[in-house]
């Protein structure tokens, strides 16, 4: 017979609230691991990037090293691909935001109507968001935009037109369409939930006030969606700033550098030209750009929310 000892959990002694002025409260102590973890994850890479960005560090000539000041930044700014890449990044963000917010809003309004099979239809609409970016890009590249096998070329030939090689002729637009395809469902999802929280009686009141569907949309629905739209813009901008997988998979930044955005430029300098120093400088600039965008967005959002609650 085996004997089992049962270890009873010792009853937890209630912890007294920390006395004011005491330096190390247990709560702070317990926070330390997560704060340390966060520091490791954030501060260390940032500091290393900053460090790499001011030294000579090329994987092809690892023996040549040393402090070079801001030379890496100068090389980067003189790189003919740099300014276009900033432009591409911004065009990508703005276009995708426009398409996904406008498309998402319209789709949310559409799918808020009652019709048979609505649940399934909503699921289909949201589906692209769950497709991995690389997979999505491959599908678009090979099955939809491909000049020979693509759906579009098929349709074009069907009506007797010359198929277009989308990725070669309109590369940035192709990327924008792919990314918008992925992010419109996200906007749709957020806006649909917001739309469902719109008081039905408000709509009916407007109806009695003589507003048709279009005016109800403009005067009642849109103002109600304002905050949700601000949230969508904010979240999407942060993610769109670092779009990489679609470009890597579909165009590899090309043709030329026509679809190279900042993250892709950093990748190509660091891991194709093996110049970690300049790539790090690009990374620092990306961080600065992200901060500018997010400060701008946080301002906008804060102003937006204030309009609703204060006064």
């Amino acid at each position: 017979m085996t004997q089992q000892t049962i270890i009873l959990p010792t009853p937890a002694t209630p912890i007294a609230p920390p006395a004011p002025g005491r330096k190390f409260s247990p709560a702070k102590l317990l926070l330390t691991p997560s704060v340390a973890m966060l520091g490791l994850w954030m501060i260390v890479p940032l500091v290393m990037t900053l460090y790499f960005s001011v030294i000579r560090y090329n994987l092809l000539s690892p023996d040549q090293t040393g402090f070079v000041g801001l030379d890496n930044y100068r090389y980067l700014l003189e790189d003919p691909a740099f300014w276009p890449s900033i432009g591409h990044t911004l065009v990508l963000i703005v276009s995708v935001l426009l398409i996904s917010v406008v498309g998402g809003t319209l789709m949310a309004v559409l799918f808020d109507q009652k019709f048979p099979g609505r649940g399934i239809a909503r699921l289909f609409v949201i589906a692209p968001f769950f497709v991995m970016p690389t997979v999505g890009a491959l599908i678009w590249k090979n099955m939809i935009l491909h000049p020979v096998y693509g759906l579009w070329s098929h349709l074009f030939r069907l009506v007797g037109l010359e198929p277009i090689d989308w990725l070669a002729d309109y590369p940035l637009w192709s990327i924008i369409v792919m990314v918008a395809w992925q992010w419109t469902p996200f906007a749709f999802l957020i806006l649909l939930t917001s739309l469902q929280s719109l008081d039905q009686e408000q709509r009916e009141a407007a109806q009695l006030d003589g507003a048709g569907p279009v005016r109800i949309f403009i005067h009642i629905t849109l103002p109600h969606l304002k905050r949700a739209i601000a949230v969508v813009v904010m979240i999407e901008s942060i993610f769109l700033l670092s779009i990489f997988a679609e470009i890597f998979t579909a165009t590899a930044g090309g043709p030329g550098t026509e679809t190279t955005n900042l993250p892709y430029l950093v990748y190509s300098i660091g891991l194709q030209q093996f110049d970690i120093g300049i790539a790090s400088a690009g990374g620092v600039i990306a961080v600065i750009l992200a901060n500018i965008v997010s400060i701008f967005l946080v301002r906008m959002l804060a102003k937006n929310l204030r309009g609703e609650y204060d006064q």
Partner: protein
Amino acid sequence: MASLTIRNLQKRYEEVEVMRDINLDIADGEFVVFVGPSGCGKSTLLRMIAGLEDISAGELRIGDQRMNEVPASKRGIAMVFQSYALYPHMTLYDNMAFGLKLAGKSKAEIDAAVMRAAKILHIDHLLDRKPKQLSGGQRQRVAIGRAITREPHVFLFDEPLSNLDAALRVKMRLEFAKLHDDLKTTMIYVTHDQVEAMTLADKIVVLSAGRIEQVGSPHTLYHHPANRFVAGFIGSPKMNFLAGTVQGFDGDFVQVQLDNGGIQSVAVERGALKAGERVTLGIRPEHLHVVHGSQIIPATVTAQESLGDHAYVYADCPAAPDGLILRVPEEEQYRPGTALQLGADPQRCHLFDASGQALARVKVLQAA
């Protein structure tokens, strides 16, 4: 003119019939109140009149125009919703002006209409505010104001006071009465509140399970309920119901033998009533008294509730499955367990036949 005529109205949701055989005439300028238990279809009926729900069958006329196919905005109706349904992002002014702006009225006209409504409702100093910055009572006024500016032929109110506290309800109730006096527009008002119904209405419509039980003035419904449902629904506390059989007839009176042996005579027309038939006796708490004599209902006190100027005594009686309630003067105290002998003025009693229909009360003496 904005009289309302409803003929054989029916409402179905898919195959479920939620309203049927609704026939109702509302005269121009009348204040009509819909009452009924939750889920009986008050809101549905109101929304059909407003044009927010389709009418499945039957006809709705406003004035002499058929309205079934007319869109909500063209019916000349304004509705005040239970949730107020103010537009949260607009100021009060814009809330009230919205309908007029959509109608393409000139700035001056809109201004005049909004100011007039705001003055009537005493909210003219709040016009720059947003709905969030108002109290419940003020929001209620804005909702009414929004209705007034449109100068509708008919006002619809769906439980407009149910979100307010008791004191404010009383105040707003009086303002509704005043508003109706001022505007003299046809108003239809849905409520759960007995007092609101009794005080405001020219005409009360009692609904139950998608049907109209009775239509009449507050006085009629209180003194001459058409059936057991209306008798139990109108009046607070509820009417006492006692089961019994018809024992015999004595001139204008019907003698009812109650199941627990008591006897009560009732001044109703005997109609087709026969001795031995099962009936239900109805006596309101304010008409049930402690008595001594031969015609008495025995009961046992279970509790007493004092309300300041008067008190309610709750009593058990085998003939009354729901128990009995009687109203007594504040000074009288009854301990639980006390045996009581109760009785009522025959002219104050109601009698319902086995199917629940009321027998017409005889006016031997005008009991005023």
